[in-house]
């Protein structure tokens, strides 16, 4: 009989993502992706002033605050006809770019790398060999010095000697499938620490423009930060110089450190380019950071990220890009604890309903997947298809459209690794695509968005706010709008209907719902589920140490434990439950 395995929490704090697996003979046979907490932000926003909606929406997630704020504001602007000035849009682009970069770097080094990198092994490394290894993989990072590698090795030694692995505690360090040599592990740990330092540069960009961080300030109609070259309290030359430097630091880290590391580590685990495929359908509205107010065909928003057009790829056919049509988005509640007034039909988000109806077992429970409904996540589908969103979808869409920079990055990486483009649809492929995309974002930010912003200031353009639609009296009696935004984890859309100056209906369709949702009315699995159980070949050597499925799920960069963090002063073990 199949053995049942539960991984819960998958995320550290509260574990709103839970995976249930059935395995046999070291392979995964069945998988269920379960969101175990209701997150109906929509019910909180309804009835409020739409100009305030963003302040609530950004609390959906502790990691993605800015992107939800921007998505909310753009949806409202679309509904009321507000048109933020170019400079305000560029500021939003820069805030989102810095967040995309920071998010990808943090994901790779701090949330995903330890699935591949064995920390204790680093203590046994020869520091000089670590320097040599870094050089061999093409890392030009300035931290690759003998002194630095020696320092980090000694730090790891000290941590091991103290018996407290701190944030490395509890990894499956004895798992047989850690493959990097000690010097590679040491290099990776050193870069892990460097990434912690250098994420600060990226964060600060958002802090300058948003006034604070986390939760920067945004504004319907533009931005709340004033630009005035002659005042110290506004965005001025001093700050612009700082921002330029931080952008340069971010770009350097991504190109000299992150991309070579991702290439090298995935190269060692090359079989993971054949593990963890999900449905070869991809959906994106552009490159990371692309933003549209309403239908892309009529949206006034433009940015370099729109160079890749919105579209979908079906069945891995890169020869055909299907034009994006927002009316093809629908959400099903077949496997979710919700009811729709008219039953389990796919509802478009503008008609979406959020009516919870829990039918699962009373907690604490051991197994959820026996019931037809097993998750709080709806199942979004595009044109009736399960689609992947996120870096891999964006990169593949750009590649299919022949976007030059994307094409070059992908072709070079594939050649170096000896893989086909189609193999980006895999555990390693998603992780690689994220790194490649990060290089693209950093490049556009430093070469295009920021210089354009500065050039406009020099030309006297310091307008960041469209006041014409601020007053509710200027709004239509009833209006609807939506935003389409490419955020770190994928395609995000917010949908709002405003009546008599208040939010009448609000829906957010988030990337992790696209990816982590459950089965639909046809029984088709969501991408997480498919990636684990799609072909019955996903490895799971030791159910007590489910390292392999963690690698695959983490490759999607799940964003689940958003929202709740209660300190447990005992530091009690929030561990895998394996049964």
């Amino acid at each position, binding site marked *: 009989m199949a053995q049942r395995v539960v991984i819960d929490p998958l995320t550290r704090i509260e574990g709103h993502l839970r995976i249930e697996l059935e395995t046999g003979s070291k392979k995964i046979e069945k998988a269920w992706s379960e969101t175990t907490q209701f997150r109906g932000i929509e019910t909180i926003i309804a009835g409020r002033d739409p100009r305030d909606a963003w302040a609530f929406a950004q*609390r959906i997630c502790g*990691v993605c605050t800015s992107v939800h704020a921007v998505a909310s504001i753009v949806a409202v602007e679309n509904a009321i006809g507000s048109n933020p000035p170019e400079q305000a849009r560029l500021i939003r682009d820069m805030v989102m770019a810095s967040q995309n970069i920071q998010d990808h770097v943090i994901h790779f080094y701090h949330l995903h790398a330890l699935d591949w990198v064995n920390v204790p092994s680093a203590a046994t490394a020869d520091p000089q060999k670590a320097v040599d290894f870094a050089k061999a993989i093409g890392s030009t990072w300035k931290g690759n010095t003998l002194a630095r590698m020696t320092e980090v090795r000694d730090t790891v030694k000290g941590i091991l000697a103290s018996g407290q692995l701190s944030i490395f505690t509890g990894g499956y360090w004895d798992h047989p499938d850690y493959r990097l040599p000690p010097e590679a592990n040491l290099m990776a740990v050193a870069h892990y620490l460097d990434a912690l330092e250098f994420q600060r540069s990226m964060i600060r960009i958002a802090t300058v423009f948003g006034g604070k961080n986390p939760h920067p300030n945004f504004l319907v109609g533009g931005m709340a930060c004033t630009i005035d070259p002659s005042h110290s309290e506004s965005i001025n030359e001093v700050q612009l110089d700082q921002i330029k430097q931080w952008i340069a630091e971010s770009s350097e880290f991504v190109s000299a450190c992150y991309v070579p590391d991702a290439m090298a580590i995935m190269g060692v685990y090359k079989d993971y380019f054949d593990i963890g495929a999900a449905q070869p359908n991809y959906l994106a509205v552009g490159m990371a950071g692309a933003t549209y107010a309403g239908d892309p065909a009529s949206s006034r928003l433009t940015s370099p990220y729109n160079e890749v057009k919105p579209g979908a790829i079906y069945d891995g056919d890169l020869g055909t890009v299907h034009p994006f049509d927002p009316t093809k988005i629908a959400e099903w509640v077949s496997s979710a604890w919700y009811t729709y007034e008219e039953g389990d039909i796919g509802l478009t988000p503008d008609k979406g309903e959020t009516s919870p109806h829990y039918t699962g077992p009373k907690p604490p429970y051991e197994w959820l997947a026996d019931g037809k409904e097993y998750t709080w996540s709806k199942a979004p589908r595009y044109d009736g298809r399960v689609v992947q969103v996120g870096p891999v979808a964006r990169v593949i869409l750009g590649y299919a459209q022949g976007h030059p920079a994307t094409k070059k990055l992908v072709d070079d990486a594939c050649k170096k690794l000896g893989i086909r483009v189609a193999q980006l649809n895999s555990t390693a492929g998603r992780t690689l695509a994220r790194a490649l995309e990060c290089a693209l974002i950093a490049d556009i930010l430093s070469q295009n968005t920021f210089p354009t912003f500065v050039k406009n200031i020099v030309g006297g353009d310091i307008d960041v706010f469209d006041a014409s639609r601020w007053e509710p009296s200027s709004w239509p009696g009833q209006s609807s709008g939506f935003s389409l935004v490419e955020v770190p984890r994928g395609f995000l859309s917010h949908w709002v209907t405003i009546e008599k100056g208040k939010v009448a209906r609000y829906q957010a369709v988030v990337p992790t719902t696209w990816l982590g949702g459950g089965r639909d009315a046809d029984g088709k699995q969501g991408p997480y589920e498919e990636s684990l159980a799609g072909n019955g070949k996903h490895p799971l050597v030791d159910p007590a140490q489910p390292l392999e499925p963690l690698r695959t799920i983490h490759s999607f960069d799940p964003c689940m434990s958003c929202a709740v963090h209660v300190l447990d*002063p005992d530091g009690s073990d929030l561990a895998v439950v394996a049964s």
Partner: protein
Amino acid sequence: MTGSSRHRTGDAGAEVTPAAPVAAASPLGARITVLGVGNPIMGDDGVGLALLDAVRQAREGDVRGGDVREDDVRGGDVREDDVRGGGRSDDPDDPYGRVDGRRLGVSREEWLGGRLQDDTDGQVDFIDGGTGGMELLPVVQESDLLLVLDAVAGPVPGTVVHLTGDQVPRMLSTKLSPHQVGLLDVFAAARMLGTEPAMVEVIGIVPELVDLRLGLSAAVAEAVPEAAGLAAGILDQWLSTPSRACPGA
């Protein structure tokens, strides 16, 4: 939390030892940060942010939080207390010395130079940390004295908790490479990087309902004044201690 007694305080064993002075103190003295954490749309998880507001308001005559406040820019009629509220993870009080700030060519002064949220006299920063993860690392690293306001797990809702010294667990045990990073992880990271506060204290309240909704439960709301008073007392003490000029920097 481990105990159920009301208003736990640090024991003698947790006494903070002065850190070895390594570099000259900043001209402004110790950097004091009050960091509220939590999610106001998750009921009592928002208590840390409610405390942040309460403490800031109590001190309004003295200092102006450098953090741009939401009511500065918001035009609607949603009250500020609708969107702020509570607490989240916690953080340790920590008696150890800083190493100098040199790493990879970035000096501590350079880090501090980028700090943007100083209040007008540089004495206290009030920061809404939300449910941020590693993006809170700079906040932690750049604080000499750090007061965290948070929801703290425990058996009796409404219990005011004061954690200090070794009561504040630095190391959170887990079996997984996480997605979401808790504040404890941020502290562990700061320690590994060798730049962390000389002193950390936590004032928290045990939540009753952590669920999707706005506002605090009655039990928790009633405990806010007491907890805010404790927090303000800690701040007063820090601000009046002569040694604050150079606790660890």
